[in-house]
């Protein structure tokens, strides 16, 4: 038996505790979301009527199945509020991901071309904001964008505008906040692929007569597509369900799905509808999540 295989057994035993933890606190809770999304709203504490009661035997269970309620999902499909907030979430996520790509790619490309010893510093500089509280970074923007904030002051002093501009409570502020918060998530995977690229490929392209621009579009960009995919997923998935940024920076006329869920849960205390919204959001995210999981596994486990 090889040393690796002897080593594997205690390693697997080590995984038991985290395995159970994740089953209990990550997997099982989804079961509860699903269950409550199928139950009726009630004015009670907790505010729903339980549908399954496993203590009552099989006959009761069958009866419970018969009266499972899809009302909450029907509501999601019928009420414009929900459909609109789904659409809005998708539009916001796609738009933000594209902007992030447009901004993040040149930055990552610049990083990958720095002299080796500066690359570490540049990477550190990109990671630090990722560690810094993102609520604080959104707040920093509110400071700048508010009615008598720094931006309006500068614009007024320079006579670019004659009256303070309303920046907050607008989609532009929300996009700014999203791009600002997620930029490191886009830059890091892009940089990881771009910095691993074999420079001799570009030299070969140059020797064969390609201009720098041609070399970029024919060699660098196609080879960086895995990084583009990873960065896009890393941004797109959480942005779809984003709550804090739109809540603090965008206006309240149109909500993203994360905000709708929050509103149903905290303000309307309608747990079943909030759960149904969560299930629907999750269904939407399954394809990108599976893709992301595959990418992550390939990166960490060498494509096992």
């Amino acid at each position: 038996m090889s040393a690796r295989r002897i080593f594997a057994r205690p390693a697997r035993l080590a995984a038991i505790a985290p395995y159970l933890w994740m089953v209990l606190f990550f997997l099982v809770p989804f079961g509860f979301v699903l269950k409550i999304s199928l139950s009726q709203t009630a004015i009670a504490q907790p505010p729903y009527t339980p549908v399954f009661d496993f203590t009552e035997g099989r006959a009761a269970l069958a009866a419970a199945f018969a009266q499972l309620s899809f009302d909450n999902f029907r509501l999601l499909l019928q009420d414009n509020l929900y459909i609109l907030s789904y659409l809005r979430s998708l539009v916001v996520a796609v738009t933000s991901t594209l902007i992030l790509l447009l901004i993040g790619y040149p930055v990552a490309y610049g990083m990958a071309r720095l002299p080796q010893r500066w690359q570490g510093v540049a990477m550190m500089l990109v990671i630090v904001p990722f560690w810094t509280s993102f609520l604080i970074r959104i707040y920093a923007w509110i400071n700048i964008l508010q009615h008598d904030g720094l931006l309006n002051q500068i614009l007024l002093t320079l006579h670019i505008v004659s009256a303070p501009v309303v920046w907050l409570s607008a989609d532009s502020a929300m996009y700014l906040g999203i791009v600002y918060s997620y930029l490191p998530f886009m830059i890091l995977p892009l940089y990881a692929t771009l910095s691993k690229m074999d420079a001799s490929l570009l030299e070969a392209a140059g020797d064969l007569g390609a201009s720098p621009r041609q070399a970029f579009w024919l060699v660098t960009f196609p080879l960086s597509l895995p990084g583009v995919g990873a960065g896009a997923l890393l941004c797109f998935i959480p942005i779809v369900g984003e709550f804090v940024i739109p809540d603090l920076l965008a206006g309240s006329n149109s909500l993203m799905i994360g905000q709708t869920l929050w509103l149903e849960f905290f303000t309307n205390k309608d747990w079943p509808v909030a759960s149904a919204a969560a299930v629907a959001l999750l269904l939407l995210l399954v394809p990108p999540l599976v893709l992301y999981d595959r990418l992550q596994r390939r990166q960490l486990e060498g494509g096992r």
Partner: protein
Amino acid sequence: MAHTVTRLTRFNMTSLALGLAFLYLPIVILVIYSFNASRLVTVWGGWSLRWYHEFFNDRAMLDAAWMSLSVAAVSATLATLLGTLAAIGLARGERFRGRALFSGMLYSPLVMPEVISGLSLLLLFVALNAERGFWTVTIAHTTLTMCFVTVVVQSRLATLDRSLEEAAMDLGCDPVRAFLLVTLPLIVPAIVAGWMLAFTLSLDDVVIASFTTGPGSATLPIRIYSEVRLGVKPEINAICTLVIALIAVIIVIASFASKLSSARGESAAPL
């Protein structure tokens, strides 16, 4: 001719500089304004520690800060323990049944929208009839942050030279001893970095904490969030600056740890 293709161009430098300025300027402005003596954000009233003073006299804020720090410390420790064990299982366990489910459960929380994680954990706690407060938030944060620890430690384990462990076992160590004597010392920097990351993530979270906490036990981000919704307050500038300073210290320690790890072999994980 070849180096014109690989050279660092002015465009590269400009985009890099602009990108970094975009990331840092708002934070710098926030820190400067936290020392502003004036109550009005527009008016610069000279340097002052007035808002820091205000914060240290704000009982409710201090309580929230204390709650956040203790949740972060406990959950980061639990997450580091569980996350490291999970990383060992994934990096050294070869193939085992349920492996795909395991890695899926560990990787998807990294991108899972927080409203979903928060809501689902709350429903579990309600079903279990658990009293909501310190421990429910701690468990929620442990679940989220252990996944980050796993990724950091696992990528360190993946780059580690396995012949070291094999040599130890050829020399008569059993696997557990080989791990404790050879592997563990080499991955300590990654484990330290993982703890730091878990700590800062916990200190940052507002959504999951809002769902899983109970009445009367708000964390600092929950308090900051509800204040910010009402508008900018200079005291918040001061609190944010203090949090940034704390995180800066943590980053310095973490980067020191990863330097240590790169001095001993390959570089640590980027995240």
